[in-house]
């Protein structure tokens, strides 16, 4: 059974913000019959504007599934998700539309499109959203400037280091001005030093834009930098830690 711990005191931005995303009773099962696995077993949570949340737990506890369900990548078998107070989980189209404007992703493996340059990768969410070319250009350059990669704008992902790629992915996640960034092990494929740099960049950028960040991580140091830690065990949220900042 899911537990909902008392919320810790949120940071000023978060206190001021309403819930960007709220989920109740989320359930997700993989497989059928005896081999079926319950990845999420009734998860309730709320993410407020500007909040940095770390989702931690052992491997296979359902962290990535939770992120995918929250981000609309995978549908929940049961439960409800609302974005900015609007229930979206029952309408895939609506979910997709709202997500596109509100929620963005940062993946462990960067998820860059290999045929596109750094700037084109950053531009992609804007292309999908139908933003005019001029505005796309300006926004993507600004996002690349935020992550310090303007001079790399014409390079292909294969010409960049892992850290640079993840910075491009962060710029891509920031460019639509989202309300929430979902990051799945953002430093998982990087060495420690680069991982710290990237994490710094991600958290700083989110805070600067007052954008909520939910990151799945195994790294206690990364978790320590979050406002809140959600601990997941066997598909159940077992504890909401206090604000660690």
């Amino acid at each position, binding site marked *: 059974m899911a537990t909902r711990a008392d919320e810790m005191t949120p940071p000023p931005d978060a206190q001021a913000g309403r819930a960007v995303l709220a989920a109740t009773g989320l359930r997700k099962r993989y497989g059928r019959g005896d081999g079926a696995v319950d990845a999420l077993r009734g998860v309730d949570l709320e993410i407020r504007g500007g909040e940095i949340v770390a989702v931690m737990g052992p491997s296979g506890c359902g962290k*990535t*599934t939770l992120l*995918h369900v929250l*981000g609309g*990548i*995978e549908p929940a078998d049961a439960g409800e998700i609302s974005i900015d107070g609007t229930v979206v989980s029952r309408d895939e189209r609506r979910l*997709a539309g709202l*997500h*596109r404007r509100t929620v*963005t*992703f940062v*993946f*462990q*493996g960067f*998820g*860059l*499109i*290999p*045929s*596109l*340059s750094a700037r*084109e990768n950053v531009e*992609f*969410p804007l*292309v*999908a*959203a139908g933003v005019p*070319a001029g505005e796309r250009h300006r926004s993507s350059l600004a996002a690349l400037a935020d992550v310090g990669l303007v001079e790399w704008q014409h390079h292909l992902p294969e010409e960049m280091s892992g850290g640079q790629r993840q910075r491009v992915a962060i710029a*891509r*996640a920031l460019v*639509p001005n989202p309300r929430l960034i979902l990051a799945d092990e953002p430093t*998982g*494929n990087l060495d420690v030093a680069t991982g710290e740099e990237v994490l710094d960049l991600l958290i700083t950028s989110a805070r600067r834009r007052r954008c909520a960040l939910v990151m799945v991580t195994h790294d206690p140091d990364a978790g320590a930098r979050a406002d809140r830690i959600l601990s997941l065990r066997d598909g159940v949220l077992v504890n909401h830690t206090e604000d660690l900042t």
Partner: protein
Amino acid sequence: MTRGVAAYTFRLLLRSPGRSLALIGGLSLGVALVVSILFFVESSSKQLTQTAIAPVPIDMVGHATVPTISQRQVVGAFRRQPGIQAVEVMDAVDFTTAARPGGAQKTPAGKLVAVDPSFFQSFDVLKVSSGAFDPNGALVTEATATRLGVKPGDTIAVSIPALAAPYQVKVTGIVDASRAQMLFLSTDPSKQGEYQVVTDMVVMDRSLFNRALRTALLGAASAQPAPNATGGAPVVDQQQLIRIDRTALPGSPAAAQTRVKTLARSLERQFTGQIKITNNLGDALGSAKGDALTAKILFIFLGLPGVALAVFLARYAGELYGEAQRREIGLLRARGASSRQVLGIAGLAAGVLGVAGAAVGLGAGTLVTVLARGNNALASASAGTFIGMVPWALAAGLLMAVASSFMPAWNAARQNVIDERRRIKRVERAPFWKRAWLDVGALLAAGVVLFLLNLSGGFKPAGGEGQTLSFSFYLFLAPLLLWIGLTLLLQRLLVKVIPLFARSAAGASSGFGQVAARSMGWRANRLTSAISVVALTLSFGVSLALFTSTYNAQKRMDAHYAVGSDVRVTPALGLAQPAGLRQRLLVPGATGVTAVMRDGSAVVGSERHVVYGINAAKFGSISYLPDSFLVGESATTMLSNLRATPNGVLISRDLANTFSILVGDPVLVRLSTGGGAYKDVRLKAVGIFKQFPTSSQDSDLVMNRAFMAQARGTTAADFYLVRADGTQAGATRVANEIKPLFGSTAPAQVQDLTATLATDQSTLTSLNLSGLGSTERIFTLVIAFAGFGIFLLSAIAERAKEFSTMRAIGAAPSQLRRLLAIEGGSIMVFGLLLSVPVGFIIARVLVTLLTSIFSLPVSGVSVSLSPLLILFAVSAGGLLVALVLTAQALPRLSLGTTLREE
């Protein structure tokens, strides 16, 4: 051990049903194409056999070599022989002349023949056109009746050298003997295969012949023995005319010839030394035999690119699961399986897939044959036909399975070891053909083969009417090398061109267009494969369509060349032509008539040559005289020059070269005026021609008809050319209008395009290639459709993660479909555009093969737009359907699973 390998192999095939089915699908496509071509070859062989034997009125003729033989005994024995349908006896005697008693008109030498009344039912060579066949009288041919002015009821006297006095007989009817030439096939070994043309004949009942003439003639023969014991012809040529059961003949000309030869030998064996069989059917089948072999090779060759593409497709489809296969092999090796065992499993798997592909392909090939050519396509196919297909289908299936399934597994097994060895340093190398420049090498080799064949005269027709074509098999090397070279060159160029194109397209577009362009540049290798499959498949269709249309055009052109116009009317030799004949030939449907004179005995220098006399003012509009037939001038100019010069003459290039004649030079010609007399004329060369219509062989000189008539002292035309609307149907209509004009009084040969197409040329030119065209059109569509579909599906499978990421970062499914549509559309457009030049180049070389078949040189590819447009429209439709179907796979991508696979 072996059982273990077998069990594992079957489990492996069942564990990866997608891969197994994809491979079986590809293999069956190739086998189906082979089977369809074999069905076409089979029916073409039958068509060749039928075309070859159709004009043969009498299948075999037995000649008694001793005068005392018992015809009754021979006929009885022959009739009992299985496979014989009818045997008729005929006695023939040469006569020196026939005349009306007391009349001044006489016929030239002719034949008196005696047959039973049943002869007229058994053979269609003599037709009673008026009167009746009476046991107490004789029929005379139309030529004899006209010459002597006799009608039924009159009496004629026939002078036979062996008789002391002319034999008088009452004429009871007139017989049309225009199909009777084969009755008198020369038995002289030096003139084997030649007919003895006899226009004057007297045909009488054998009972009357036996009563009135036989004893006297045989008595004369014994008094004057033949010049030599075996070769000399007896006074009475005692023949047995044999009709065999043609329906029981095998479809293949070679097998049919063997059957009739065996039959002829078994007939001769029954009367050794007494009967000599002339095997007309065997001779006709002999000429078709070579043509059938050529046709077989040609058709199989035409289908080869399709088979190669099917193999490529099967391999490509198999590669979709290549990673699984490599993992499987790696696992096997890790578990301790030896290379031999791994290869054993791969070999057995290829064998099973090959057999399954052959079985499915056999059914699919049969289905496509019915779809393409209708139910009749299989009407003549027996159980033996299908059984005969099985080894071919199996061989094709197994060979293709080795190429598409075993070889990649073998490579993967090898790679596994190599990878181990090169764990530290992985070397990316271009494929061997690229490093060795095999594409350029193949193209150069094709050029060299073409050049050498031209030098050695490999393209010159070596066969004439009724003869086997001598066909150099090196001819096939050139298009084969060209196809391989173009295929590889296309790959080499596309890999370079696609990124350039993609870069420009990306620069010129924005949004998803730009994303698609970047993606295309990034996947140039994969795109090259897809574009190559589509382009080569369509070029295969294009080249076949062009080849077929050129074949048909060439066929018509050859027929027009041989006939001279749409219809040629040749009045019987030596007969007075009805007045106003030229005007009467202007039947409904005829747009013009011109008379042509021919002197086959004219002399130039010391050699005999053929001279034609034409009306230069009208000839151009009635005959088919393209400018390509002439040297240095257009047809209009050359005919105008001839008209302006009454003693002008056009000379064949060969003759001009032989006598070093240039335009403007005087030419001395001796024209024959009949009876061995000649008239010398001084002509002036006004033009040189390479070919001249009306004859495929013997046009040496062409002069003004009026001048020729004046010089020879006769205005009688040797034949008339009649122009209809240029189509085969139009020519037949006009010919059918003309035939009744002559009745039985003035026989004439009316030759139209259809008849010429059927008889005057090599049997190879009589084939109908439309069946092959429609069969291969279906395969073009299926291969292009499958190839394109497989590419798109593999693109989705390979890029599942990329597409999933795109979805996750905001792209809607419809936007991904648009992305796929842009890439797929580019493949379609590139494929379609490239297929035209590639198809045209291949067709251009393929049609050089036709030069060996037709009388006229093939001047170029004949483009018929409608089949090409149909091909493109149907293919584009098929590709669009493939695009729409595969795009349905996009929303089914499992984003969560894909994005987890880090």
